[in-house]
């Protein structure tokens, strides 16, 4: 370990220090309102360090800690995404966090520690590092899910912990088998060992890859590993649900792309995991959307919606071998772009849910009735988020879906694109139901609430996320460009 290694890992160290700092500040101040402000301001430090790493052209080697840690453009993309999502989640939970009483400092710290794990995950190039980063992500999330003293919250916590541990064990078994077969735990060396020793069609490698897919499938809540999502999303505190649905999923896709492209690239492993992804994608979309129709709880509905969104995202994982004339990288670039758009959209939706459920103490979709009259701003943000989740212009969800589905067409997966479009139509039913309830039903009390009564933090988080959803829906160019360089650095 030398200074160069410390420099490479500085954003992660920075965010861990921010988390510890928040706990220390918590000990000394009695007014807990300053905690989110402290967290948000100090989050600029890891952000600055990430920008510094991003713009540093004479950085030398981007790999540190004996090849276990890599800060390429791909990792940087996810660090920005995770930092941004974390900041919006913290902003949106300022009002809600008062329910945690004296434990607000720990709440913000756990979110920051989990974010540190996610950032580490995006950079890890070795199986043990990857596992540690994954657990650093999952354990604080389980603690957060059980954070309120309510029956449902503790239940969500134990469900998340047990299922996450089972999935980690399955993942570990797969990783250990791959290690035993290839003799190395470095992703690059696994790839070269598979090529050099002709292990491409070994059944043991296939078994390992299937177990690894199952383990990662849990993290992104793809069918058939989605069973934890609805209960955990419903029981956990709402900001935590938002955090899990956005940042945790982004980190999961980061590591899937990293492992599958670096270690099991199609040119050396003879296993067609793209087809496996295509099937999982079609099942995830259909199951998620069909079950979401029946939900009356907004958090549960959004849980099934994220299962469906994971299905759309996996279209990009399946679309990897383009027909002649197509772009081989369009699929993974689409995944990155979709993740960024999905993060903004879903955070807008969750910020509104946090604001409304915090005020009404009710998670049912009916608690949104007449929101357009009570708070036009929140209703507008929610409506735009729902439209973006369906994939209707002028939102970022539309651009992202166009990009992903056209990548699927380019790779000869027309059937998957058709399934995706049909599913988008199905999903319109339950997303628009929320819009209908907000705009057409009359509110229970007729007076207009002031926007600030919903909590300044949540409202401003909703506005920021809504602005992102709208702006990048019209002008997606900047994100696409960053996603492009990120995928170039991953695939080369």
């Amino acid at each position: 370990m030398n200074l160069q290694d410390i420099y490479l890992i500085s954003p992660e160290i920075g965010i861990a220090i921010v988390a510890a700092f928040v706990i220390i500040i918590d000990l000394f101040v009695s007014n807990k309102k300053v905690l989110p402000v402290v967290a948000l301001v100090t989050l600029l430090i890891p952000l600055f360090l990430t920008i510094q790493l991003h713009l540093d052209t004479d950085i030398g080697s981007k790999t540190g800690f004996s090849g276990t840690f890599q800060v390429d453009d791909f990792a940087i993309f996810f660090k920005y995404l995770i930092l941004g999502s974390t900041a919006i989640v913290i902003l949106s939970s300022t009002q809600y966090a008062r329910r945690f009483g004296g434990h607000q400092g720990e709440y913000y710290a756990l979110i920051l520690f989990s974010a540190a794990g996610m950032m580490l995950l995006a950079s890890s190039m070795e199986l043990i590092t990857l596992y540690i980063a994954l657990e650093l992500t999952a354990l604080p999330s389980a603690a957060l899910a059980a954070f309120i003293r309510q029956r449902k919250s503790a239940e969500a916590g134990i469900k998340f912990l047990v299922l996450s541990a089972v999935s980690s064990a399955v993942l570990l078994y797969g990783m250990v088998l791959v290690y035993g077969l290839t003799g190395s735990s470095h992703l690059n060396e696994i790839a070269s060992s598979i090529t050099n020793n002709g292990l491409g069609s070994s059944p043991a490698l296939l078994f390992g890859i299937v177990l690894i897919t199952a383990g990662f499938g849990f993290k992104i809540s793809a069918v058939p590993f989605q069973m934890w999502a609805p209960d955990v999303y419903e029981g956990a505190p709402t900001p935590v649900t938002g955090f899990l649905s956005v940042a945790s999923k982004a980190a999961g896709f980061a590591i899937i792309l990293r492992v599958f492209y670096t270690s099991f690239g199609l040119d050396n492993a003879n296993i067609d995991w793209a087809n496996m992804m295509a099937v999982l994608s079609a099942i995830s979309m259909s199951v998620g959307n069909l079950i979401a129709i029946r939900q009356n709880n907004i958090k549960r509905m959004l849980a099934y919606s994220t299962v469906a969104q994971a299905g759309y995202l996996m279209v990009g994982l399946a679309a990897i071998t383009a027909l002649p004339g197509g772009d081989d990288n369009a699929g993974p670039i689409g995944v990155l772009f979709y993740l960024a758009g999905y993060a903004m959209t879903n955070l807008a939706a969750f910020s509104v849910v946090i604001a409304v459920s915090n005020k009404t103490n009710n998670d049912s979709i009916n608690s949104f009735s007449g929101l357009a009259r009570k708070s036009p701003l929140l209703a507008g943000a929610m409506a735009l988020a729902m439209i973006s989740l369906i994939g209707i212009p002028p939102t970022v969800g539309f651009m992202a879906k166009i990009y992903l589905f056209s990548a699927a067409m380019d790779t000869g997966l027309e059937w998957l694109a058709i399934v995706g479009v049909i599913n988008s139509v199905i999903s319109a039913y339950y997303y628009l139901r929320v819009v209908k309830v907000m705009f057409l039903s009359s509110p229970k009390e007729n007076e207009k609430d002031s926007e600030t009564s919903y909590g300044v933090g949540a409202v401003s988080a909703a506005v920021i996320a809504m602005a992102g959803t709208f702006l990048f829906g019209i002008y997606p160019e900047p994100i696409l460009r960053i996603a492009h360089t990120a995928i170039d650095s991953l695939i080369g």
Partner: protein
Amino acid sequence: MTLERFLIIGAILFAIGLYGALSKKHAIAVLMSLELMFNGVNVTAVALSRYTVPKALSENIENAASFLLTGQVFAVFIITVAAAEVALGLAIIIAIYRSRSTVLVTEAADMKK
């Protein structure tokens, strides 16, 4: 003892643990089953490291020495993280006991529709 026997023991431990984790009603028993799964992985990791590395060294495979202890290191990390996992699990189980006066996971099913 050959490598196969260790791999089989590891697989059996893993399978027993998986069965237990999915079927046990008592929350503590679920945590114990999780521990079995992790230990099945540990046995596999250490056995693979013990048997494949000397073979690679004797065959003069390039870089064999560099992955000398990876399996063992893997096992140590798994044990450490599993301990953290169980500690958190016990804390949540206490929270469940406080709200329901039971630690049966079948009773913690408010959200099951």
